[in-house]
């Protein structure tokens, strides 16, 4: 069981060794993102740029005009929020092969709290033309994605989680863009999840099984592109879909699934994720439990949705 950031550090080092188009650009977080492995082992492939994320994106674009394919090392939130305009104009609009490695995105960031949590990145990046959006489940899926990203001609946003989770895949995993993965069968409900949350969702499915509820688990790690038919097929005749994500309930994975299903008829969708609020700094378990992403809380939410299928009148708060 290995943390994605460590895998990212190792893989980026090995990519840089074999491909001289690879550069790692750092915004003073190499020791957190693990880009430090490149900095110490292969200093010529490492470019420190200091705490200036906007400038880093522009520099990355400039480097692509000479054939380089730079990977950016910083926290996801300082890419997708701090440098969004730069990503938009210099990377997305020019379709430049810049790799945005969004570290520590989502809820879990080692007690840094809400200022460091990116719970909007999937919304923002999904709406960005030309952008590929990848959210790997575990160390193996991330490792398999990286050579694909390295070769991809356009920009890519990929989430890299801080902490380790129980793996979902193994060393034989092969990445195929757009592909949707059915990880568990079950007729009562389909849980659609992304990123390291999928590991916790599988655990939740186990909890549900103890109560006699059989949940299918669908993992979507390639939010863009996505095999829409594959998703519809994976969900099949499931009477209920619950999406689960370390992201706002608005406009993220849940939004994506709702958008796809709403074009097809199909089952009722319940979206589960961070309710529309900011969080706090605390240990991971506390956060997962309080904010509803622990296996237990996910299981409870699904049980509740299966029990109470009609909502009363509701105006969501602004």
């Amino acid at each position, binding site marked *: 069981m290995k943390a994605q950031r460590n895998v990212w550090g190792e893989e980026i080092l090995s990519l840089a060794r074999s491909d001289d188009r690879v550069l790692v650009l750092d915004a003073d977080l190499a020791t957190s993102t693990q880009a430090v492995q490149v900095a110490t082992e292969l200093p010529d492939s490492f470019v420190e740029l200091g705490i200036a994320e906007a400038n880093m994106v522009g520099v990355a674009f400039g480097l692509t005009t000479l054939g380089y394919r730079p990977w950016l090392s910083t926290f996801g939130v300082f890419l997708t929020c701090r440098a969004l305009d730069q990503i938009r104009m210099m990377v997305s609009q020019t379709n430049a092969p810049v790799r945005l490695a969004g570290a520590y995105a989502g809820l879990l960031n080692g007690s840094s*709290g809400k200022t460091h949590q990116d719970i909007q990145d999937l919304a923002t990046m999904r709406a960005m033309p030309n952008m590929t959006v990848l959210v790997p489940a575990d160390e193996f899926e991330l490792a398999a994605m990286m050579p694909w990203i390295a070769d991809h001609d356009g920009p890519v946003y990929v989430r890299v989680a801080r902490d380790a989770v129980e793996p979902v895949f193994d060393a034989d995993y092969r990445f195929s863009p757009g592909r949707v993965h059915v990880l568990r069968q079950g007729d009562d409900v389909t849980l659609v999840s992304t990123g390291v949350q999928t590991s916790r969702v599988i655990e939740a499915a186990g909890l549900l099984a103890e109560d006699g509820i059989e949940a299918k688990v669908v993992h979507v790690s390639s939010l863009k592109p996505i095999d829409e038919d594959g998703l519809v097929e994976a969900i099949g005749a499931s009477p209920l879909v619950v999406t689960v994500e370390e992201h706002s309930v608005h406009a993220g994975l849940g939004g994506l699934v709702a958008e796809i299903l709403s074009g097809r008829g199909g089952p009722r969708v319940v979206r589960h994720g961070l309710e529309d609020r900011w969080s706090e700094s*605390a240990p991971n378990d506390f956060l997962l439990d309080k904010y509803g992403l622990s296996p237990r809380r996910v299981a409870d939410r699904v049980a509740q949705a299966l029990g109470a299928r009609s909502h009363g009148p509701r105006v969501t708060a602004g």
Partner: protein
Amino acid sequence: MRTTQQEEASPQELHGALDTQALEKIARRVRWLIISTVANSKAGHIGGPLSAADMLVALYFNEMSIDPSQPHAPDRDRFILSKGHCSIGLYSVLALRGYFPVEELATFDHGGSRLQGHPDMKLTPGVDASTGSLGQGLSAGLGMAIGAKKLDRDFHTWVMLGDGESEEGQVWEAVISAPRFGVDNLTAIFDVNGLQQYGWPAQERDRFDRSEPLGHVDLEAVLTGFGWNVLTVDGNDFGQILSAFDQVRAWHGTSGKPTAIVSRTSKGQGISFTQGVFKWHNGVATPEQLAQARHELLGNDPEGELQ
């Protein structure tokens, strides 16, 4: 402007309440609270809080017009810790100053705590602005200073930034625009402690040494060129700090310009094994290291038994 919704209260005037010896003693306790609290919470920043500790103590114990029992008093001086990752330094000072119990530091970073990893003005008494994403505090302080001028309110706004943080462009947006507004009620303290989290390798040392974030910049010339009053101090020397504050007070309401204090400090200052070591940007001390820090900082000072 309606200000009726705000409570009316007068903060305490403090200038010169304590001498440098008294301040040094408080600063040692603050340093102990920093390293011990982070050890207790098993995560947190060390080097930046330590370099800034003396400045924070001087501000809260000797300079700012504040009243810990009235953290929202309308005419209090404001302080913004723009380098928000150094929250534990601010929290330790606020606790000792009476904003909340020192015991509460034990909840730092814990779920449900008022003491978040990065300062949250909605939760912590005494925190005037939420920070954590670097580079934003000076803009907030500029807004407060412009507002005070518009409303003819006499308080002073202080903002502390890191030298690594000053690589952020937004800092310079605020620096460029501030002189437009004649905000001589605004002071930016640049805590130039010579290190950031990782940064650039040092030119002529081994690969584990790092170069100064603004080492190639003549910070005083730049700030002067942008139209600011500029003072330089050893920010770990209370004598120099207090003289600078005297000058700031003299310029308040008279100079027509914002003031920058270039505060040259050491990252990790005050504890032998953290000082100047970039890896102590953050970290958790071992029990042995804690014991050593305690000895270096408090010796046999019984009042040190604060936590």
